[in-house]
C-alpha cells in the first residue's frame, strides 16, 4: 500500500498503545481458537452415532419385590406382552442403557491368562431381539438365536460362548482387518473363551466421556435379577403414545413389582450431554464477549489516536490526500497491528493447545481453526476501525490552517 512504510515507522514511535491492542488481539486469538476448538470437540462428541434408533425407543425399570417371585416366567410373559402390543416393533430385557452414564464393562483379550493386554468394552446382556429392538445394523456375521440365550443369576461369573461386538471394537482388536474378527475366539474374564459371531456398525457405551465409548459387546443372557431394564422400540411416531400404555399394562399385570423411570432415549441423550451444552454456551459467551471487548478496544484506540492527530490529518489532506487515502491509512494501521497480534496469537493459541493436549488429553488444534481465527480477527479489526477511519476521512482539510 501507498504508505505502509510510513505507517510502520510512525507506529514504531507510538508503540505502547498499538502493542497493547496487539496483545489484546493475541490474547483473544489464543482464547478464541482454543474455546472454539473445545466447542467443536464437544459438538463432535454429541454428534457421534449412538447406534440406536433414538427417535423411536424408550426404556423403563422393572423392580421386583415379591418373595418367591418367578423372574424367569414373568420375563417371558412381559416380553411376550410388550412385543405383541400394536405399534411395538420389538423389546428386550437389558442390563444397561447407552448414553445413560451407568452400565457394566468387561475386557476381552486375544490370549487366555493374566497379564495379557485386554481391551475394555461396555457389555450389554440381551437376547436375539436386541438388534431389532435397538435398531442396530448387523454389518458382518450373524445374530444370536434363541438357543444361544442363557439364564444368568445375579453374581454369576461365567459367560456365554458367543458375542456380537461393535465395528470400533473389532477394529481395536484386529487393526489390520476388522472383518476378520468374525469367527475369532477371544477371552473374557481372562480365561473364558468366547466366539465373536457378529459385528454391528455402532453401539455406544453408557459413558459418553470415556475414550472407548464406541466399544460395546452384546452377550446372550437373560438375567434372573430383581432389577432390570426393558428396552422397547416402536413404529415411527408411536413412541409417546405407547409409553404410558405399556407402563400401565406392565404395572397392572403384576402387583409384585414396580415400573419406574419410563424414559425416552432422546431424553437420556439430552441429560447425558447437558453439561456439554452448558459448557458450550459458556464458552460461546466467552468468545463473543472477548471479541466484542477487543473490537471496542480497537475502536477506542483508533478514536483516541485520530483525535490526537486531527491537525496532522488536516495537513495530510492539505498535502493532497484524498478521503480514501486517509481512511486506508487507518485501515492499514489496524491491519498491521492485527498482523502483529495475530502472529503472537498464533503462537499463544498453539502453546495453550499444547498445554491442553498434554494436560486434558485433547487432540491438537487444526490448521483450519487457526486460519479461521486469524481471518476472523482481521475482519473484526477492520470492521472496528471502519467508523473511526471514516471519521478521520471527514476531517476538513482546513483543519491544517485553522487549528493551532
Amino acid at each position, binding site marked *: 500500500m501507498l504508505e505502509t512504510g510510513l505507517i510502520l515507522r510512525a507506529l514504531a514511535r507510538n508503540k505502547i498503545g498499538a502493542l497493547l491492542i496487539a496483545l489484546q488481539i493475541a490474547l483473544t486469538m489464543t482464547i478464541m481458537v482454543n474455546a472454539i476448538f473445545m466447542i467443536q470437540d464437544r459438538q463432535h462428541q454429541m454428534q457421534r452415532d449412538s447406534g440406536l434408533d433414538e427417535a423411536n425407543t424408550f426404556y423403563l425399570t422393572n423392580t421386583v419385590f415379591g418373595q418367591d417371585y418367578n423372574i424367569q416366567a414373568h420375563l417371558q410373559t412381559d416380553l411376550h406382552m410388550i412385543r405383541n402390543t400394536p405399534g411395538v416393533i420389538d423389546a428386550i430385557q437389558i442390563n444397561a442403557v447407552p448414553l445413560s452414564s451407568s452400565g457394566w464393562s468387561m475386557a476381552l483379550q486375544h490370549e487366555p491368562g493374566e497379564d495379557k493386554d485386554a481391551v475394555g468394552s461396555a457389555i450389554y446382556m440381551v437376547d436375539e431381539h436386541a438388534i431389532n429392538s435397538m435398531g442396530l445394523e448387523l454389518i458382518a456375521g450373524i445374530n444370536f438365536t434363541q438357543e444361544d440365550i442363557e439364564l444368568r443369576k445375579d453374581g454369576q461369573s461365567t459367560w456365554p460362548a458367543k458375542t456380537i461386538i461393535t465395528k470400533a471394537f473389532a477394529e481395536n482388536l484386529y487393526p489390520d482387518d476388522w472383518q476378520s474378527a468374525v469367527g475369532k475366539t477371544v477371552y473374557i474374564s481372562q480365561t473364558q473363551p468366547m466366539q465373536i459371531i457378529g459385528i454391528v456398525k455402532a453401539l455406544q457405551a453408557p459413558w459418553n466421556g470415556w475414550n472407548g465409548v464406541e466399544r460395546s459387546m452384546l452377550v446372550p443372557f437373560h438375567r434372573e435379577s430383581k432389577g432390570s431394564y426393558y428396552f422397547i422400540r416402536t413404529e415411527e411416531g408411536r413412541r409417546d403414545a405407547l409409553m404410558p400404555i405399556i407402563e400401565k399394562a406392565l404395572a397392572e399385570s403384576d402387583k409384585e413389582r414396580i415400573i419406574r423411570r419410563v424414559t425416552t432415549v432422546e431424553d437420556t441423550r439430552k441429560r447425558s450431554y447437558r453439561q456439554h451444552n452448558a459448557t458450550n454456551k459458556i464458552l460461546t459467551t466467552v468468545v463473543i464477549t472477548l471479541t466484542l471487548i477487543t473490537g471496542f478496544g480497537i475502536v477506542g484506540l483508533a478514536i483516541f489516536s485520530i483525535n490526537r492527530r486531527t491537525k496532522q490529518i488536516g*495537513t495530510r489532506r492539505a498535502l493532497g490526500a*484524498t478521503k480514501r487515502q486517509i481512511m486506508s491509512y487507518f485501515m492499514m494501521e489496524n491491519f498491521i497491528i492485527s498482523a502483529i497480534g495475530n502472529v503472537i496469537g498464533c503462537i499463544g493459541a498453539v502453546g495453550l493447545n499444547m498445554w491442553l493436549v498434554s494436560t486434558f488429553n485433547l487432540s491438537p488444534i487444526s490448521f483450519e481453526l487457526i486460519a479461521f481465527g486469524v481471518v476472523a480477527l482481521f475482519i473484526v479489526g477492520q470492521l472496528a476501525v471502519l467508523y473511526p477511519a471514516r471519521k478521520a476521512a471527514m476531517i476538513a482539510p482546513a483543519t491544517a490552517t*485553522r487549528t493551532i
Partner: protein
Amino acid sequence: MLVMKNINKIFQTADIQTHALRDFCLQVNEGDFVSVTGPSGSGKTTFLNIAGLLETYTDGEFLLDGEDVGTLNDNGRSRMRNQKIGFIFQGFNLIPDLNLYDNVDVPLRYRGFNAKERKRRIEENLERVGLASRMKHLPSQLSGGQQQRVAIARALATDPRFLLADEPTGNLDSEMAKGVLTLLEEINQQGTTIIMVTHDAELAQRAKRTIQVKDGRVSELEIVSPQMNQAIA
C-alpha cells in the same frame, strides 16, 4: 494564473452567519510574489484556504490555471492540491512521528511517484533548504526556523505552481523569519508563484506585490514594493 471574481464565503453556524469574504476579486499571475496583510478576522486565512482548495466558497468564480475550481469534487480538489499547490503553515505542521525524509515523502506518496523518484526529490529539496544532512532527524530535534524549512522542502517537493503560506514566520523570531523569507524569495525567483499572509509589515513590503484585505474585500491593489521601485529606478 489564479483568478477570483466576486467570491463570497459565508460561514453558517447554528445561529450566526459570518460573511468572511465579500465579492472578493483578485488576479495573481504566474511568477508573482503576493503578500496579504489585513486586520485580524478580515478574511485572510479564508482567502488563502479557498485559494488553496482547502475550503469551498459560497459563490463566485475561481479559476486556477484555467480550471474552474467550482466544478471539482472533493477528490478532484485533493488531486489539484497535490499537483499544483504547496502549503506552508504558521505552526509548520510537520508530522512529529516521522523524520525529515519521511515528512517530505508524504505528498510524494499521495502523488504516486516511485521510490527512486521520491528519493531524488526528497534529497534535492532538503538540499535546497540546507537540511540534507539531517534527514534522519525528527522535527522535534530542530529549531523552529529549521522546521519551517523542512515544511518548505515538503511543499516544494511536488513542484507546485503555487506556494501558499499563512503566517509562515508567525512562530519565528525576526532573524529566523528573515531567513525563511529570503528562502521564499529564492524560490519565487526560480518561478514558483507565492501568496503569503503576514502580519509583519516589514516582511510584507519585501513581496513584489502587496494586497490588503479588510472586511472580506481586497482594499488595496497593486502597491509596488520598495524593492520593485528600486529595480525600476
